[in-house]
């Protein structure tokens, strides 16, 4: 990792009641890189996202964005600095049209209505939503809603995009359609940190991957290295699974 990491999370911890949900996790995202965050369910990935985007305050540790300590900043200030996020459970502004939904994000950088609407249309074009611009957001399909989440976040002109399981609920062809959109983002100077369970996407998109299990980071590296790491296999499949796989116990004859 280069010294000029865009996002640096340092030893961040979060307690909920008596449970240590995130335990001293550290990670870094370089500018223009796509970084994956994977791990079994309940590992604390979304909590980590909430910490980075400012919806939760950490109990210890710091978050540094572009050289600036943002640990105490509220979510809207982080968005203004260039961190945008999507939500795992999509949250469209149900009463508004797609265009107006995206415009809310666009208004962050473009105070004038005409500029905001123009940006909204541009972003819709980028994310394949042009045909839906006047449709009410409440009536969209799952796939379109996911794109809307993405579009809204992109409209804020972020430098770091936090994607929380943006592919969840999409069928394989919908996944195939949205991957190029995501792949094109670093070319526009947008770094991505994505929580994902769809391994196909992680393998094909991510430059680096972090693995979180029970609140702790247990592995880090390229997608290939990480998926072969026995610790990672055990985190997903259970204790001793890695050695059993190596011993060919599950191998077909």
């Amino acid at each position, binding site marked *: 990792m280069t010294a000029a990491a865009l996002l640096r999370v340092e030893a961040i911890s979060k307690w909920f009641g008596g449970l240590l949900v995130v335990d001293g996790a550290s990670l870094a995202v370089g500018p223009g890189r796509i970084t994956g965050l994977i791990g079994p369910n309940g590992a604390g990935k979304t909590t980590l996202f909430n910490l980075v*985007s400012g919806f939760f305050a950490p109990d210890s540790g710091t978050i540094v964005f572009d050289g600036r300590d943002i640990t105490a900043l509220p*979510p*809207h200030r982080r*968005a203004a600095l260039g961190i945008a996020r999507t939500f795992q459970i999509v949250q*469209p*502004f149900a009463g*508004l049209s797609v265009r*107006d939904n995206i415009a809310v994000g666009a*208004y962050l950088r473009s105070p004038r209505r005409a500029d905001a609407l123009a940006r909204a249309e541009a972003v819709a074009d980028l994310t394949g939503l042009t045909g839906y611009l006047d449709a009410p957001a409440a009536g969209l399909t799952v796939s379109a809603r996911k794109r809307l989440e993405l579009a809204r976040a992109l409209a804020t002109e972020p430098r770091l995009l936090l994607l929380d399981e943006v592919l969840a609920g999409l069928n394989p062809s919908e996944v195939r359609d949205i991957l190029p959109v995501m792949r094109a983002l670093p070319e526009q100077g947008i770094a991505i940190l994505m929580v994902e369970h769809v391994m196909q996407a992680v393998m094909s998109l991510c430059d680096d991957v972090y693995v979180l299990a029970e609140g702790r980071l247990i592995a880090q590296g390229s997608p290939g290295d990480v998926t072969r790491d026995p610790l990672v296999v055990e985190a997903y499949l259970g204790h001793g699974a890695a050695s059993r796989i190596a011993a060919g116990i599950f191998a077909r004859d």
Partner: protein
Amino acid sequence: MKHWSVYGSIGLAAVVFAALPLVTDSNTVLNAMVTAMIIALAAQGWNVLGGYGGQLSFGHAAFFGTGAYADAILQASCGVNAYAALAIATAAGGLVGLAIGFLSFRAGLRGSYFTLVTLAFAEVFRIVANAAPVTGAASGTLIKLDVRAVNFQFASRAIYFWIILALVAATMLLMRGIEQRRFGAWLIAVRENEDAAKALGVDTLRVKLQAITLSAAMTALAGGFYAQYYLFVDSTIAYGSWISVEALLATIIGGIGTVFGPVFGALALYFLGEFAKYITGRAPGIDLAFYGTLLILVVAFARDGVQGLLSKAAGAVARAGKSA
């Protein structure tokens, strides 16, 4: 087909209404219309916070009453000019709104809890106003009758009507302008989903504070005008629950979250109230019982209740926005 812009519609409606005193000189009719317009103005205020902002207040009387008392006391006890008093009263209402908003939103109060606290604040104001010497305690405050234009007192009710009509039209133009601008978009976003709005860079606390201040100022203006028209204010008139209820009812029945809604609603309330009284004999409270029933029916049968009304409003805004 020719598309009327929303601004044009507001102007046209204002002109049509302004013709009313030219076709009738019945004091009863004019009086009713002035009262309806006062409610409409108060409702416009409520609509900013409750309709566009989605924060339901059951205590807007706190702002109405502050405007009414401020206007009356400044004139009666401090000798301030009537027009200046009205302006100050409006600002005072806005400040009260800011204060209540600051306390409530900073404490993170949302939904029902916010509604409850607005109710409590209004009651506190009422109790204090009923006891404090500066407001005349239970006897209230009188503005001295001195019918001259410089005192904002007119012999002809028509003039009052034209003034309140102009004020209502002005707020409608303002709301249309807000709908078309960033503040409006952000306010609606906060209403629809506060967390999503925050993630998009919206300073939701600031937006809500601005909304409640504007909302309170408008309603205070209505209160100040009321004091100016009736020349008498007491704690029940100023801070009683009647105005909180009517402002809310007018907006919801007329179309919550829309530019024309509060005005439609205030007029509808007046006519429906008269109708109810007519068919049931003039028993006290029948009109309000009718309003209550109407509220339940509107909430029940408008598709998805209040949310459905909001969606329809947003859809209409989107369509109208392309032509404004």
